[in-house]
């Protein structure tokens, strides 16, 4: 899968589109669509399960082949903003999933894990999947 196959997120880096409205008394409410909330909930549940069940595992193959991680990969591009958010927050082992979903590897040859994380975060910003701040 090449770069041209990515659909830029024009609306921002969040997977969920939020409808906001002002109501009397100065209260502002927002509503996230059920479908998008479900994607995020599914991701959080799988990510938590994966982290918990692989936290003592040093083999990247075994960690990446865990069923929860594979299900996240199976979520495809919908998962990219969520993975990017998680990568930014935890700097954890999301490189395999990002590579599997996008078919790209923006990290330089021979780089360390930390350098690869930085490269992916830059890639996420460039492609509209991550916030620049």
């Amino acid at each position: 899968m090449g770069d041209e196959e990515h659909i830029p997120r024009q609306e921002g880096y969040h997977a969920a589109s939020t409808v906001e409205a002002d109501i009397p008394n100065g209260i502002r409410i927002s509503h996230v669509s059920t479908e998008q909330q479900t994607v995020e909930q599914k991701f959080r549940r799988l990510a938590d399960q994966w982290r918990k069940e692989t936290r003592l595992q040093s083999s990247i193959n075994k960690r990446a082949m865990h069923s929860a991680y594979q299900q996240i990969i199976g979520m495809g591009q919908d998962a990219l903003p969520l993975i990017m958010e998680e990568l930014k927050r935890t700097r954890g082992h999301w490189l395999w999933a990002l590579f599997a979903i996008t078919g790209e590897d923006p990290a330089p040859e021979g780089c360390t894990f930390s350098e690869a994380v930085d490269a992916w975060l830059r890639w996420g910003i460039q492609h509209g999947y991550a916030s620049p701040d």
Partner: protein
Amino acid sequence: MKQLMRGSGGEYNTAMPHPIDYNLEEDFPNLAVSGWHKTSEPSDVYNCIAFSLHDTQQWWAYGAIRVRGYYWPPGLTRDDTVESWIEVFEIHGFQRCLTTDLEQGIEKVVIYVNRGEPQHITRQLENGIWISKLGPDEDIEHNTLEALVGDKYGKVEIIMKRPRVSKATS
């Protein structure tokens, strides 16, 4: 040999116990008996293989797909077998040996194997205590090798040694 306090309430755990401490003793029931303490916060940057070779900057692992950001010594077998782990340590001067006893001027590492697959490697410090990096989790020191024996890491199968090349303990 300096002995560590037993369990998570010993003198080496001066702060409030981290929730992970409790989980570790659930994952490794022998830890509490052995005596242990945490020596670092969790880190995704390096793993047990790297740590056993004094490297805290890289995650040593071959990848079934070639995702960049992981290190594996060039030219070595690329798989998750005991033999390939042994190979990694052989090119860094280690050779197989029979005893885990503390020897002056000798550094030892031990590979834990579960169902024929390597799960973990730990390194012996100069005082005889063992130091481990647990996956992406924290580093710990543990008095005995039995501390990590169990369902997660299996049992001690391979012992290797080399002359100590550094006084570094991390």
